[in-house]
């Protein structure tokens, strides 16, 4: 392996990330084990997290605004959006803090740095899975019969995870340089949620402007989840825009991370 001021070659980097697969797995397991250790409700929290906002939004939206949700009961509609959204919001919150929180470790041991935010995100897949199982129970009770299309959900969570890795790594890298990021993140996440059709249908926006909303990749994630759950048609052009934008974010985050990584240990 050759190390120069620009780091190591791309081939070496890829090999290295593969070699540290064990660390990725163990970090994710650690995060899961620690998250609800010494809590009374334990994993139940991953269920409550989307359920509580679902109740609130159902009370507010379905009573006051009565949005058009393609015949889907509003509480199911909201839960279908909140489940992937909670995964994303929790993921970027956790991933974004990894570099600064582990400053000491970064100064003592070398391992491919991006493993930390990636593992933090992987740890939330379990929460998503539990929330999704609860969601499917709600669906069957409401008269939806379990369908094979639901098997697309894992693909959608991969899509969501790609978005989360892009944003999470970018946030983690930026926080290493600007501590402001930590304070700004909660607002950004809040605004981002309302910029995503999580608790309202995308049809609330006129057809001509929907592509603007789709440039937010989480729009694609949320819409695809609902299409899959309720057996609605997929708006492929919109989904493609979201996917392209997810890849763009990932590429930009990689470039940013690469820049910060050079002296990460000195910065955090």
């Amino acid at each position, binding site marked *: 392996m050759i190390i120069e*001021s620009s780091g190591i070659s791309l081939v070496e980097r890829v090999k290295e990330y593969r070699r540290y*697969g064990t660390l990725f797995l163990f970090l994710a397991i650690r995060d899961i*084990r620690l998250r609800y250790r010494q809590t009374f409700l334990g994993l139940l929290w991953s269920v409550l997290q989307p359920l509580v906002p679902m109740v609130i939004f159902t009370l507010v939206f379905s009573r006051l605004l009565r949005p058009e949700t393609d015949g889907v009961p509003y509480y199911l509609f909201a839960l279908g959006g909140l489940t992937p959204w909670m995964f994303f919001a929790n993921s970027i919150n956790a991933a974004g803090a990894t570099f600064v929180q582990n400053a000491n470790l970064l100064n003592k*041991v070398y391992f491919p740095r991006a493993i930390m935010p990636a593992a933090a995100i992987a740890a939330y897949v379990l929460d998503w899975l539990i929330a999704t199982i609860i969601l499917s129970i709600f669906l069957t009770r409401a008269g939806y019969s379990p369908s094979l299309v639901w098997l697309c959900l894992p693909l959608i969570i991969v899509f969501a995870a790609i978005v989360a890795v892009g944003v999470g790594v970018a946030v983690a890298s930026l926080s290493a340089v600007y501590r402001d990021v930590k304070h700004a993140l909660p607002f950004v996440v809040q605004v981002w949620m309302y910029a995503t059709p999580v608790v309202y249908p995308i049809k609330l926006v006129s057809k001509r402007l929907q592509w603007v909303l789709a440039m937010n990749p989480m729009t694609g994630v949320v819409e695809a989840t609902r299409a899959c759950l309720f057996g609605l048609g997929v708006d492929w052009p919109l989904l493609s825009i979201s996917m392209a934008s997810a890849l763009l974010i990932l590429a930009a985050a990689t470039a940013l991370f690469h820049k910060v990584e050079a002296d990460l*240990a000195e910065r955090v």
Partner: protein
Amino acid sequence: MKTIAVQGVSKEFLFTRQRLESRNIRDLIHWRHQKPASAAPTFLALDEINFEAHAGEVIGILGRNGAGKSTLLKVLSRILRPTKGRIELNGRVGSLLEVGSGFHPELTGRENVFLNAAILGMTKREIYGKLDQIVDFAGITTHLDEPVKTYSSGMYLRLAFAVAAHIEPEILLIDEVLAVGDAEFQKKSMKRIEEIGTQRQTVLFVSHNMQAIMRLCSRALLLDRGKVVASGPVPDVVAAYLQIDGGHRGERHYPDGPYAPGSHVARLRGIRVRSCEGQTLSTVSIGEKFGIEMQFEVMSAGSTLYPTLSLYNEWGTEVFLSTDVTTEWHGRPRPAGWYTVTAWVPPNLLREGLLNVTAAIYSFQPYFIHFKESDVVSFQTVESSDGINARGNFIGYIGGVVRPLLDWTVHYEAIRTDSRAPRE
């Protein structure tokens, strides 16, 4: 087989705190107004380092604090990136820069072993294969499934070292980790490093401990201000290490009388640290007697003068102050002339470190300071590697201002097996 080739490697740090601390939004706004980076003062922690290492070599890295030893290991382990130069590594690199990094108090011993081993670069299969050995080495079998926050600090460190000692990369970097645990555990750790050295691995070993370096290493490098200043067989490099005086010196003279520190009565003319044979020293072995010699001139007769010498350690603590009570001149008025006084320091009194000498001459009745020169000379004390010393078998850091070799006595009583013994 060549495992490490370092070619012209430099590492530069920006001296300003700005780079090291994170920026805030104000800096972002003023970004354009910032001075060009070249204007910022920098610090060259490593300056054109070149060296090679081969499989099976255990190389000691010596140097004073700030010489660049830790930076070198961090660059080799890729925690820091070199500013310049090229490093070729053939094989996996494992580093033991600090044991227990990444331990989490809420996780159990077993969970921590897994996580820590993975952080150090082991794969799942390797960890499963080594788990028993690690647990055995640490000697904590019964507590393995309890959270490490319930461990004593000794158990915690033993477990952490055990994990680290069982990574088997081709290149192993070790930075002063031997200061862990009790003497017995240290012996085990040393033995483990010796084993690693014979397993065709390359080990780079940073330590201030000459004994450990001499015992473990086949070759040594000496760093001084970021440069490799000596390299080769351990005894030669250790000797070179003891000779660099890092800016301090064991001798100072004041040839021009009028400029020498002093009063119209007495002036300081020279001071040095000397061996029993009369050689001037800048490095003193703790196990040997040495003297601090002060020469002063008395210009007008009749004053009672108290020459005093005091030693200050690197933390600025006064180790002792001494005056000439054992001489016939003590408390007597002195005639004019030149005096050479020597305070003899017995063996096995000081600890290793840097010592600064303050020389002064006082008069009482009336109280007067003729001169008081702080840090007039300084010298380094080192642990001798042979003979009896207060360190004994212990390899790690020993605290304290002094380290005298005290007489110990032991009163031993065997456990009695009568009625007072605890019931089974």
